[in-house]
Protein backbone atom coordinates (compact mmCIF):
# COMPACT_ATOMS: atom_id res chain seq x y z
CA UNK A 1 0.00 0.00 0.00
CA UNK A 2 1.39 3.41 -0.86
CA UNK A 3 1.32 6.04 1.87
CA UNK A 4 -1.51 8.08 0.39
CA UNK A 5 -3.85 5.10 0.40
CA UNK A 6 -3.06 4.21 4.02
CA UNK A 7 -5.15 5.89 6.71
CA UNK A 8 -3.56 4.27 9.76
CA UNK A 9 -0.27 2.46 10.12
CA UNK A 10 1.00 0.94 13.37
CA UNK A 11 4.39 -0.74 13.53
CA UNK A 12 5.67 -2.59 16.58
CA UNK A 13 3.66 -0.54 19.06
CA UNK A 14 4.11 -1.31 22.71
CA UNK A 15 2.58 0.23 25.83
CA UNK A 16 2.60 -0.79 29.45
CA UNK A 17 1.17 0.82 32.56
CA UNK A 18 2.75 0.08 35.90
CA UNK A 19 4.60 -2.98 34.64
CA UNK A 20 1.51 -4.46 32.97
CA UNK A 21 1.71 -4.80 29.19
CA UNK A 22 -1.44 -3.36 27.59
CA UNK A 23 -0.35 -3.34 23.94
CA UNK A 24 2.29 -5.82 22.82
CA UNK A 25 4.25 -5.44 19.56
CA UNK A 26 1.15 -4.51 17.62
CA UNK A 27 1.30 -3.78 13.89
CA UNK A 28 -1.55 -3.24 11.45
CA UNK A 29 -2.55 -1.00 8.56
CA UNK A 30 -5.90 0.44 7.62
CA UNK A 31 -6.52 1.50 4.03
CA UNK A 32 -8.50 4.62 3.20
CA UNK A 33 -12.20 3.90 2.78
CA UNK A 34 -11.94 0.73 4.81
CA UNK A 35 -13.86 -0.25 7.92
CA UNK A 36 -11.36 -1.85 10.25
CA UNK A 37 -12.38 -3.50 13.50
CA UNK A 38 -10.41 -4.08 16.66
CA UNK A 39 -12.13 -7.05 18.22
CA UNK A 40 -11.41 -8.32 21.67
CA UNK A 41 -12.73 -8.88 25.17
CA UNK A 42 -12.67 -6.13 27.78
CA UNK A 43 -9.08 -5.41 28.77
CA UNK A 44 -7.63 -6.54 25.42
CA UNK A 45 -6.19 -3.04 24.85
CA UNK A 46 -8.74 -1.79 22.31
CA UNK A 47 -9.45 1.56 23.97
CA UNK A 48 -5.75 2.15 24.62
CA UNK A 49 -5.05 1.70 20.91
CA UNK A 50 -7.92 4.02 19.95
CA UNK A 51 -6.56 6.69 22.31
CA UNK A 52 -3.04 6.20 20.96
CA UNK A 53 -4.26 6.98 17.45
CA UNK A 54 -5.49 10.35 18.74
CA UNK A 55 -2.22 11.12 20.53
CA UNK A 56 -3.90 10.87 23.94
CA UNK A 57 -1.60 8.04 24.99
CA UNK A 58 2.04 7.87 23.89
CA UNK A 59 3.44 4.46 22.95
CA UNK A 60 6.54 3.19 24.78
CA UNK A 61 7.92 1.88 21.50
CA UNK A 62 6.93 1.59 17.86
CA UNK A 63 5.67 3.99 15.21
CA UNK A 64 2.18 5.30 14.56
CA UNK A 65 1.14 7.17 11.41
CA UNK A 66 -2.39 8.52 11.10
CA UNK A 67 -3.45 10.27 7.88
CA UNK A 68 0.23 10.67 6.99
CA UNK A 69 1.05 12.39 10.28
CA UNK A 70 3.37 10.91 12.90
CA UNK A 71 1.46 10.44 16.16
CA UNK A 72 1.69 11.63 18.90
CA UNK A 73 4.16 14.29 17.64
CA UNK A 74 1.71 15.76 15.12
CA UNK A 75 -1.49 14.30 16.55
CA UNK A 76 -3.13 17.71 16.67
CA UNK A 77 -2.73 18.11 12.92
CA UNK A 78 -4.05 14.58 12.34
CA UNK A 79 -7.05 15.28 14.61
CA UNK A 80 -8.17 18.09 12.31
CA UNK A 81 -9.28 15.32 9.93
CA UNK A 82 -10.47 12.79 12.50
CA UNK A 83 -13.90 12.39 14.05
CA UNK A 84 -14.09 10.65 17.41
CA UNK A 85 -16.92 8.68 18.98
CA UNK A 86 -15.72 7.91 22.51
CA UNK A 87 -16.72 4.89 24.52
CA UNK A 88 -18.59 7.01 27.05
CA UNK A 89 -20.79 9.87 25.93
CA UNK A 90 -19.21 13.21 26.76
CA UNK A 91 -21.89 15.48 25.37
CA UNK A 92 -22.82 18.74 27.08
CA UNK A 93 -25.92 17.61 28.97
CA UNK A 94 -27.22 21.08 29.82
CA UNK A 95 -26.85 22.30 26.23
CA UNK A 96 -29.30 21.71 23.42
CA UNK A 97 -28.48 19.49 20.45
CA UNK A 98 -27.79 22.57 18.34
CA UNK A 99 -25.57 24.15 20.99
CA UNK A 100 -23.56 20.95 21.32
CA UNK A 101 -22.71 21.03 17.63
CA UNK A 102 -22.02 24.78 17.71
CA UNK A 103 -19.64 24.56 20.65
CA UNK A 104 -17.84 21.56 19.17
CA UNK A 105 -17.46 23.19 15.77
CA UNK A 106 -15.70 26.10 17.46
CA UNK A 107 -13.08 23.71 18.82
CA UNK A 108 -12.15 23.12 15.18
CA UNK A 109 -11.89 26.85 14.55
CA UNK A 110 -15.12 26.90 12.52
CA UNK A 111 -17.03 30.17 12.26
CA UNK A 112 -20.65 30.36 13.41
CA UNK A 113 -21.72 30.76 9.78
CA UNK A 114 -19.82 27.68 8.68
CA UNK A 115 -21.29 25.64 11.52
CA UNK A 116 -24.83 26.87 10.74
CA UNK A 117 -24.26 25.79 7.14
CA UNK A 118 -23.45 22.16 7.99
CA UNK A 119 -25.90 21.86 10.88
CA UNK A 120 -29.03 20.84 8.89
CA UNK A 121 -27.26 18.00 7.11
CA UNK A 122 -25.75 16.75 10.38
CA UNK A 123 -29.13 16.82 12.13
CA UNK A 124 -30.67 15.00 9.21
CA UNK A 125 -27.88 12.43 9.18
CA UNK A 126 -28.37 11.79 12.90
CA UNK A 127 -32.19 11.75 12.46
CA UNK A 128 -32.42 14.52 15.04
CA UNK A 129 -34.11 17.20 12.91
CA UNK A 130 -36.99 17.54 15.34
CA UNK A 131 -34.70 17.57 18.39
CA UNK A 132 -32.45 20.50 17.43
CA UNK A 133 -33.59 22.60 20.38
CA UNK A 134 -34.03 19.79 22.89
CA UNK A 135 -31.61 19.54 25.80
CA UNK A 136 -29.30 16.57 25.58
CA UNK A 137 -30.44 15.40 29.01
CA UNK A 138 -33.90 14.82 27.46
CA UNK A 139 -32.60 12.51 24.71
CA UNK A 140 -32.70 8.70 24.74
CA UNK A 141 -29.47 6.69 24.75
CA UNK A 142 -29.73 6.01 21.02
CA UNK A 143 -30.31 9.69 20.23
CA UNK A 144 -27.32 10.70 22.35
CA UNK A 145 -25.16 8.23 20.48
CA UNK A 146 -26.39 9.60 17.15
CA UNK A 147 -25.65 13.13 18.32
CA UNK A 148 -22.15 12.03 19.29
CA UNK A 149 -21.80 10.62 15.78
CA UNK A 150 -23.06 13.87 14.21
CA UNK A 151 -20.67 15.81 16.42
CA UNK A 152 -17.78 13.63 15.21
CA UNK A 153 -18.66 14.60 11.63
CA UNK A 154 -18.71 18.35 12.15
CA UNK A 155 -15.18 18.86 10.80
CA UNK A 156 -15.94 16.64 7.77
CA UNK A 157 -13.27 14.11 8.82
CA UNK A 158 -11.59 11.51 6.59
CA UNK A 159 -11.28 9.08 9.44
CA UNK A 160 -13.66 8.11 12.23
CA UNK A 161 -12.31 6.51 15.38
CA UNK A 162 -15.09 4.83 17.32
CA UNK A 163 -14.61 3.18 20.66
CA UNK A 164 -17.47 0.70 21.15
CA UNK A 165 -20.01 2.81 19.27
CA UNK A 166 -23.05 0.70 20.12
CA UNK A 167 -22.28 -0.61 23.60
CA UNK A 168 -25.25 -0.13 25.88
CA UNK A 169 -27.78 0.49 23.09
CA UNK A 170 -30.93 -1.54 22.51
CA UNK A 171 -31.09 -3.58 19.26
CA UNK A 172 -33.19 -1.01 17.42
CA UNK A 173 -30.87 1.87 18.23
CA UNK A 174 -27.87 -0.31 17.41
CA UNK A 175 -29.21 -1.21 13.96
CA UNK A 176 -29.84 2.44 13.23
CA UNK A 177 -26.22 3.30 14.10
CA UNK A 178 -24.95 0.44 11.89
CA UNK A 179 -27.07 1.70 9.03
CA UNK A 180 -25.69 5.23 9.49
CA UNK A 181 -22.13 3.90 9.55
CA UNK A 182 -22.71 2.05 6.27
CA UNK A 183 -23.83 5.36 4.74
CA UNK A 184 -20.56 6.92 5.88
CA UNK A 185 -18.54 4.07 4.38
CA UNK A 186 -20.44 4.50 1.12
CA UNK A 187 -19.34 8.13 1.20
CA UNK A 188 -15.73 6.96 1.33
CA UNK A 189 -14.96 7.59 5.00
CA UNK A 190 -12.47 5.37 6.79
CA UNK A 191 -13.69 3.87 10.04
CA UNK A 192 -11.72 2.28 12.82
CA UNK A 193 -13.97 0.78 15.44
CA UNK A 194 -13.38 -1.21 18.56
CA UNK A 195 -16.02 -3.67 19.61
CA UNK A 196 -16.69 -6.81 21.51
CA UNK A 197 -19.84 -7.47 19.51
CA UNK A 198 -19.10 -10.16 16.96
CA UNK A 199 -22.22 -9.31 15.04
CA UNK A 200 -21.14 -5.69 14.75
CA UNK A 201 -17.69 -6.68 13.51
CA UNK A 202 -19.13 -9.20 11.05
CA UNK A 203 -21.71 -6.81 9.63
CA UNK A 204 -19.57 -3.70 9.31
CA UNK A 205 -15.90 -4.49 9.08
CA UNK A 206 -14.04 -5.11 5.85
CA UNK A 207 -11.15 -6.40 7.89
CA UNK A 208 -10.50 -6.91 11.52
CA UNK A 209 -7.83 -7.60 14.02
CA UNK A 210 -8.58 -9.95 16.90
CA UNK A 211 -6.83 -8.94 20.10
CA UNK A 212 -6.16 -10.71 23.33
CA UNK A 213 -4.06 -9.29 26.14
CA UNK A 214 -2.78 -6.55 23.86
CA UNK A 215 -1.57 -9.05 21.26
CA UNK A 216 -2.85 -9.59 17.74
CA UNK A 217 -4.01 -13.18 17.48
CA UNK A 218 -5.61 -12.98 14.03
CA UNK A 219 -6.19 -10.47 11.26
CA UNK A 220 -8.18 -10.58 8.06
CA UNK A 221 -11.56 -10.35 6.39
CA UNK A 222 -14.36 -11.74 8.58
CA UNK A 223 -15.45 -14.42 6.09
CA UNK A 224 -11.85 -15.50 5.44
CA UNK A 225 -11.19 -15.74 9.17
CA UNK A 226 -14.33 -17.84 9.60
CA UNK A 227 -13.30 -20.06 6.72
CA UNK A 228 -9.72 -20.44 7.89
CA UNK A 229 -10.41 -21.08 11.55
CA UNK A 230 -13.72 -22.92 11.42
CA UNK A 231 -14.60 -23.77 7.82
CA UNK A 232 -17.53 -26.06 8.59
CA UNK A 233 -20.98 -26.06 10.16
CA UNK A 234 -21.57 -25.83 13.87
CA UNK A 235 -23.91 -28.04 15.86
CA UNK A 236 -24.81 -26.76 19.30
CA UNK A 237 -26.14 -29.39 21.67
CA UNK A 238 -27.93 -28.48 24.89
CA UNK A 239 -28.84 -30.95 27.60
CA UNK A 240 -27.55 -34.43 28.42
CA UNK A 241 -24.10 -35.23 29.71
CA UNK A 242 -21.67 -33.28 27.51
CA UNK A 243 -18.76 -35.64 28.19
CA UNK A 244 -20.74 -38.74 27.31
CA UNK A 245 -22.10 -37.06 24.17
CA UNK A 246 -18.64 -35.99 23.17
CA UNK A 247 -17.52 -39.63 22.94
CA UNK A 248 -20.60 -40.45 20.90
CA UNK A 249 -20.07 -37.86 18.18
CA UNK A 250 -16.29 -37.66 18.21
CA UNK A 251 -15.80 -39.70 14.99
CA UNK A 252 -17.87 -37.21 12.98
CA UNK A 253 -16.55 -33.97 14.40
CA UNK A 254 -13.53 -31.97 13.33
CA UNK A 255 -13.42 -30.32 16.72
CA UNK A 256 -15.55 -30.34 19.87
CA UNK A 257 -15.70 -27.82 22.68
CA UNK A 258 -17.65 -27.93 25.91
CA UNK A 259 -18.77 -24.70 27.48
CA UNK A 260 -20.80 -25.21 30.63
CA UNK A 261 -23.78 -27.37 29.68
CA UNK A 262 -23.41 -26.70 25.97
CA UNK A 263 -21.45 -28.73 23.47
CA UNK A 264 -20.13 -27.07 20.34
CA UNK A 265 -19.40 -29.51 17.56
CA UNK A 266 -17.65 -28.34 14.39
CA UNK A 267 -18.63 -30.84 11.73
CA UNK A 268 -18.26 -30.86 7.94
CA UNK A 269 -21.30 -33.19 7.73
CA UNK A 270 -23.65 -32.19 10.54
CA UNK A 271 -26.29 -34.76 9.43
CA UNK A 272 -23.99 -37.54 10.63
CA UNK A 273 -23.78 -35.92 14.03
CA UNK A 274 -27.55 -35.65 14.19
CA UNK A 275 -27.92 -39.30 13.29
CA UNK A 276 -25.71 -40.22 16.24
CA UNK A 277 -27.84 -38.14 18.57
CA UNK A 278 -31.18 -39.50 17.37
CA UNK A 279 -31.58 -42.04 20.18
CA UNK A 280 -30.82 -39.54 22.96
CA UNK A 281 -33.74 -38.08 24.92
CA UNK A 282 -33.99 -34.51 26.25
CA UNK A 283 -31.55 -32.90 23.84
CA UNK A 284 -31.96 -29.64 21.98
CA UNK A 285 -29.88 -29.49 18.82
CA UNK A 286 -29.17 -26.36 16.81
CA UNK A 287 -27.37 -26.47 13.51
CA UNK A 288 -25.99 -23.24 12.03
CA UNK A 289 -23.29 -21.83 9.77
CA UNK A 290 -20.11 -20.70 11.58
CA UNK A 291 -19.69 -17.10 12.62
CA UNK A 292 -17.08 -14.76 13.97
CA UNK A 293 -17.97 -15.65 17.52
CA UNK A 294 -16.84 -19.20 16.86
CA UNK A 295 -13.53 -17.88 15.52
CA UNK A 296 -13.12 -15.61 18.48
CA UNK A 297 -13.92 -18.29 21.01
CA UNK A 298 -11.77 -20.78 19.17
CA UNK A 299 -8.82 -18.42 19.30
CA UNK A 300 -9.28 -17.14 22.82
CA UNK A 301 -10.86 -20.20 24.44
CA UNK A 302 -14.42 -20.66 25.63
CA UNK A 303 -13.55 -19.46 29.10
CA UNK A 304 -13.01 -15.82 28.06
CA UNK A 305 -16.10 -14.53 29.84
CA UNK A 306 -14.67 -15.44 33.22
Amino acid at each position, binding site marked *: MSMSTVAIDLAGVRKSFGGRTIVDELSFSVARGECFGLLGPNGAGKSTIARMLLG*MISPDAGKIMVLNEPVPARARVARMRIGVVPQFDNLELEFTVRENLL*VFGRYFGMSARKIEAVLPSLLEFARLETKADARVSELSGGMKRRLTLARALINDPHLLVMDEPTTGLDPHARHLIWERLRVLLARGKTILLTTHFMEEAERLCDRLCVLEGGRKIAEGKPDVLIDEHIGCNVVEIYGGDPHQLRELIRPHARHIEVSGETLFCYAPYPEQVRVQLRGQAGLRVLQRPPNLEDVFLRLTGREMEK
Partner: protein
Amino acid sequence: MGESYAAVMPTNAYNWIAVWRRNFLAWKKVALASILGNLADPLTNLFGLGFGLGLIVGRVEGTSYIAFLAAGMVATSAMTSATFETMYAAFARMDAKRTWEAILSTELTLGDIVLGELVWAASKSVLAGTAIGIVAVTLGYASWLSILYAMPTIALTGLVFASLAMVVISLAPSYDYFVFYQTLVLSPMVFLCGVVFPTSQLPGSFQHFVGLLPLAHSVDLIRPAMLERGVDGAVLHVAALCVYTVFSFFASIAVFRRRLLR
Protein backbone atom coordinates in the same frame (compact mmCIF):
# COMPACT_ATOMS: atom_id res chain seq x y z
CA MET B 1 10.38 14.50 25.81
CA GLY B 2 10.68 18.23 25.08
CA GLU B 3 8.82 17.70 21.85
CA SER B 4 5.86 16.09 23.58
CA TYR B 5 5.67 18.92 26.14
CA ALA B 6 5.57 21.40 23.28
CA ALA B 7 2.72 19.40 21.74
CA VAL B 8 0.46 19.97 24.76
CA MET B 9 1.12 23.73 25.13
CA PRO B 10 -1.35 26.31 23.83
CA THR B 11 -1.37 26.19 20.05
CA ASN B 12 -1.68 29.90 19.41
CA ALA B 13 -2.94 33.12 20.96
CA TYR B 14 -6.64 32.52 20.24
CA ASN B 15 -7.56 28.80 20.31
CA TRP B 16 -8.45 29.08 24.03
CA ILE B 17 -11.35 31.42 23.16
CA ALA B 18 -13.48 28.43 22.07
CA VAL B 19 -13.15 27.02 25.61
CA TRP B 20 -14.00 30.39 27.16
CA ARG B 21 -17.09 30.67 24.95
CA ARG B 22 -18.22 27.18 25.93
CA ASN B 23 -18.10 28.20 29.59
CA PHE B 24 -19.79 31.50 28.87
CA LEU B 25 -22.67 29.71 27.11
CA ALA B 26 -23.09 27.39 30.10
CA TRP B 27 -22.92 30.32 32.51
CA LYS B 28 -25.53 32.35 30.61
CA LYS B 29 -28.07 29.66 31.40
CA VAL B 30 -27.59 30.18 35.14
CA ALA B 31 -26.37 33.79 35.11
CA LEU B 32 -28.83 35.22 37.62
CA ALA B 33 -28.19 32.56 40.26
CA SER B 34 -24.47 32.90 39.66
CA ILE B 35 -24.45 36.66 40.16
CA LEU B 36 -26.56 36.46 43.31
CA GLY B 37 -24.27 33.73 44.64
CA ASN B 38 -21.22 35.87 43.90
CA LEU B 39 -22.68 38.77 45.84
CA ALA B 40 -24.17 37.02 48.83
CA ASP B 41 -21.03 35.91 50.68
CA PRO B 42 -18.90 39.07 50.36
CA LEU B 43 -21.91 41.26 51.13
CA THR B 44 -22.57 39.35 54.33
CA ASN B 45 -18.95 39.88 55.34
CA LEU B 46 -18.99 43.51 54.33
CA PHE B 47 -22.11 44.37 56.29
CA GLY B 48 -21.43 42.09 59.21
CA LEU B 49 -17.80 43.07 59.74
CA GLY B 50 -18.02 46.55 58.26
CA PHE B 51 -20.91 47.90 60.28
CA GLY B 52 -20.35 45.74 63.33
CA LEU B 53 -16.58 46.03 63.73
CA GLY B 54 -16.54 49.40 62.02
CA LEU B 55 -18.27 50.94 65.00
CA ILE B 56 -15.58 49.70 67.36
CA VAL B 57 -12.60 50.17 65.11
CA GLY B 58 -13.24 53.63 63.82
CA ARG B 59 -10.77 54.79 61.14
CA VAL B 60 -8.02 52.65 59.64
CA GLU B 61 -5.14 54.02 57.57
CA GLY B 62 -6.93 57.32 57.24
CA THR B 63 -10.23 55.97 55.97
CA SER B 64 -13.42 54.50 57.43
CA TYR B 65 -13.15 50.83 58.34
CA ILE B 66 -15.90 49.83 55.91
CA ALA B 67 -14.11 51.53 52.99
CA PHE B 68 -10.89 49.79 54.07
CA LEU B 69 -12.70 46.48 54.28
CA ALA B 70 -14.60 46.94 51.00
CA ALA B 71 -11.31 47.12 49.09
CA GLY B 72 -10.10 43.97 50.84
CA MET B 73 -13.39 42.26 50.04
CA VAL B 74 -13.01 43.03 46.34
CA ALA B 75 -9.64 41.22 46.36
CA THR B 76 -11.01 38.34 48.43
CA SER B 77 -14.06 37.83 46.25
CA ALA B 78 -11.84 37.86 43.14
CA MET B 79 -9.73 35.20 44.82
CA THR B 80 -12.58 32.96 45.95
CA SER B 81 -14.56 33.26 42.76
CA ALA B 82 -11.60 32.22 40.56
CA THR B 83 -10.64 29.49 43.01
CA PHE B 84 -14.10 27.98 43.25
CA GLU B 85 -14.76 28.18 39.53
CA THR B 86 -11.56 26.24 38.94
CA MET B 87 -11.77 23.82 41.86
CA TYR B 88 -15.35 22.79 41.37
CA ALA B 89 -16.56 23.67 37.88
CA ALA B 90 -13.32 23.10 35.96
CA PHE B 91 -12.56 19.97 37.97
CA ALA B 92 -15.99 18.59 37.04
CA ARG B 93 -15.33 19.38 33.37
CA MET B 94 -11.96 17.66 33.59
CA ASP B 95 -13.21 14.66 35.57
CA ALA B 96 -16.84 13.56 35.81
CA LYS B 97 -18.32 15.49 32.88
CA ARG B 98 -15.53 14.45 30.49
CA THR B 99 -15.73 17.85 28.79
CA TRP B 100 -11.95 18.10 28.52
CA GLU B 101 -11.79 14.61 27.04
CA ALA B 102 -14.20 15.69 24.30
CA ILE B 103 -12.17 18.84 23.63
CA LEU B 104 -8.93 16.84 23.51
CA SER B 105 -10.29 14.93 20.51
CA THR B 106 -10.47 18.17 18.52
CA GLU B 107 -7.85 20.59 17.28
CA LEU B 108 -7.29 22.04 20.74
CA THR B 109 -4.46 21.03 23.06
CA LEU B 110 -4.35 20.64 26.83
CA GLY B 111 -2.67 24.05 27.02
CA ASP B 112 -5.51 25.65 25.06
CA ILE B 113 -8.02 24.14 27.49
CA VAL B 114 -6.15 25.21 30.63
CA LEU B 115 -5.66 28.72 29.26
CA GLY B 116 -9.34 28.99 28.34
CA GLU B 117 -10.35 27.82 31.82
CA LEU B 118 -7.99 30.30 33.49
CA VAL B 119 -9.22 33.27 31.50
CA TRP B 120 -12.79 32.16 32.14
CA ALA B 121 -12.19 31.92 35.90
CA ALA B 122 -10.53 35.35 35.81
CA SER B 123 -13.58 36.70 33.98
CA LYS B 124 -15.78 35.45 36.79
CA SER B 125 -13.44 37.18 39.25
CA VAL B 126 -13.87 40.45 37.42
CA LEU B 127 -17.61 39.99 37.65
CA ALA B 128 -17.54 39.15 41.36
CA GLY B 129 -14.99 41.82 42.27
CA THR B 130 -16.81 44.46 40.26
CA ALA B 131 -20.11 43.52 41.87
CA ILE B 132 -18.68 44.25 45.33
CA GLY B 133 -17.10 47.39 43.95
CA ILE B 134 -20.46 48.58 42.69
CA VAL B 135 -21.98 48.00 46.12
CA ALA B 136 -19.13 50.05 47.63
CA VAL B 137 -19.74 52.85 45.14
CA THR B 138 -23.47 52.79 45.80
CA LEU B 139 -22.83 53.11 49.55
CA GLY B 140 -20.40 55.95 48.89
CA TYR B 141 -17.18 54.17 49.90
CA ALA B 142 -15.56 54.32 46.46
CA SER B 143 -15.97 56.17 43.17
CA TRP B 144 -16.94 54.75 39.78
CA LEU B 145 -13.56 55.66 38.38
CA SER B 146 -11.74 53.84 41.18
CA ILE B 147 -13.53 50.61 40.23
CA LEU B 148 -12.29 51.07 36.68
CA TYR B 149 -8.73 51.53 37.97
CA ALA B 150 -9.01 48.41 40.09
CA MET B 151 -10.39 46.25 37.26
CA PRO B 152 -7.05 45.13 35.70
CA THR B 153 -5.75 44.12 39.12
CA ILE B 154 -8.97 42.26 39.87
CA ALA B 155 -8.48 40.36 36.60
CA LEU B 156 -4.86 39.60 37.47
CA THR B 157 -5.93 38.41 40.93
CA GLY B 158 -8.42 36.08 39.25
CA LEU B 159 -5.73 34.74 36.95
CA VAL B 160 -3.32 34.09 39.82
CA PHE B 161 -5.81 32.20 41.95
CA ALA B 162 -7.29 30.31 39.02
CA SER B 163 -3.84 29.02 38.08
CA LEU B 164 -2.99 28.14 41.68
CA ALA B 165 -6.29 26.26 41.93
CA MET B 166 -5.44 24.60 38.61
CA VAL B 167 -2.34 23.11 40.23
CA VAL B 168 -4.51 21.92 43.13
CA ILE B 169 -7.02 20.17 40.86
CA SER B 170 -4.28 18.69 38.70
CA LEU B 171 -2.92 16.95 41.80
CA ALA B 172 -6.14 16.20 43.72
CA PRO B 173 -7.59 12.71 43.23
CA SER B 174 -11.10 13.95 44.17
CA TYR B 175 -13.13 16.86 45.52
CA ASP B 176 -12.42 15.75 49.08
CA TYR B 177 -8.88 17.12 48.91
CA PHE B 178 -9.89 20.69 48.07
CA VAL B 179 -10.85 21.37 51.65
CA PHE B 180 -7.16 21.30 52.64
CA TYR B 181 -6.37 24.07 50.19
CA GLN B 182 -9.38 26.06 51.40
CA THR B 183 -8.74 25.77 55.13
CA LEU B 184 -4.94 25.69 55.16
CA VAL B 185 -4.14 28.17 52.40
CA LEU B 186 -7.05 30.40 51.43
CA SER B 187 -8.68 31.13 54.79
CA PRO B 188 -5.41 32.01 56.59
CA MET B 189 -4.49 34.27 53.67
CA VAL B 190 -7.65 36.32 54.16
CA PHE B 191 -6.57 37.11 57.71
CA LEU B 192 -2.86 37.53 57.01
CA CYS B 193 -2.87 39.56 53.83
CA GLY B 194 -4.41 42.82 54.97
CA VAL B 195 -7.99 42.14 53.97
CA VAL B 196 -9.62 42.73 57.37
CA PHE B 197 -6.79 44.57 59.15
CA PRO B 198 -3.55 46.22 58.00
CA THR B 199 -0.53 43.89 57.76
CA SER B 200 1.40 46.40 59.90
CA GLN B 201 -0.51 44.91 62.86
CA LEU B 202 1.33 41.62 62.39
CA PRO B 203 4.61 40.77 64.17
CA GLY B 204 7.64 41.90 62.12
CA SER B 205 8.87 38.46 61.03
CA PHE B 206 5.33 37.56 59.91
CA GLN B 207 5.19 40.62 57.72
CA HIS B 208 8.11 39.31 55.62
CA PHE B 209 6.37 35.99 55.14
CA VAL B 210 3.09 37.69 54.25
CA GLY B 211 4.95 39.71 51.63
CA LEU B 212 5.35 36.47 49.69
CA LEU B 213 1.65 35.62 49.59
CA PRO B 214 -0.23 36.42 46.38
CA LEU B 215 -3.31 37.84 48.09
CA ALA B 216 -1.13 40.42 49.89
CA HIS B 217 0.11 41.69 46.52
CA SER B 218 -3.46 41.84 45.19
CA VAL B 219 -4.68 43.78 48.23
CA ASP B 220 -1.73 46.19 47.98
CA LEU B 221 -2.74 46.92 44.39
CA ILE B 222 -6.53 46.95 44.70
CA ARG B 223 -6.90 48.97 47.91
CA PRO B 224 -4.95 52.06 46.77
CA ALA B 225 -6.81 51.94 43.45
CA MET B 226 -10.16 51.89 45.18
CA LEU B 227 -9.21 54.56 47.70
CA GLU B 228 -7.63 56.58 44.87
CA ARG B 229 -4.20 56.69 46.43
CA GLY B 230 -0.78 56.14 44.89
CA VAL B 231 0.49 52.53 44.85
CA ASP B 232 3.85 51.74 46.44
CA GLY B 233 5.93 49.26 44.46
CA ALA B 234 3.26 48.54 41.85
CA VAL B 235 5.76 46.92 39.47
CA LEU B 236 6.92 44.53 42.18
CA HIS B 237 3.36 43.53 43.06
CA VAL B 238 2.39 42.95 39.43
CA ALA B 239 5.62 41.03 38.79
CA ALA B 240 5.03 38.81 41.83
CA LEU B 241 1.48 38.01 40.68
CA CYS B 242 2.72 37.29 37.15
CA VAL B 243 5.41 34.91 38.44
CA TYR B 244 2.79 32.99 40.45
CA THR B 245 0.50 32.79 37.43
CA VAL B 246 3.06 31.70 34.86
CA PHE B 247 4.72 29.16 37.13
CA SER B 248 1.39 27.60 38.16
CA PHE B 249 0.15 27.57 34.58
CA PHE B 250 3.09 25.49 33.32
CA ALA B 251 3.17 23.32 36.43
CA SER B 252 -0.51 22.45 36.09
CA ILE B 253 -0.12 21.56 32.41
CA ALA B 254 2.83 19.30 33.21
CA VAL B 255 0.82 17.48 35.89
CA PHE B 256 -2.34 17.26 33.76
CA ARG B 257 -0.28 15.82 30.93
CA ARG B 258 0.82 12.96 33.16
CA ARG B 259 -2.71 12.52 34.45
CA LEU B 260 -4.74 12.79 31.25
CA LEU B 261 -2.32 12.01 28.40
CA ARG B 262 -0.19 9.13 29.54
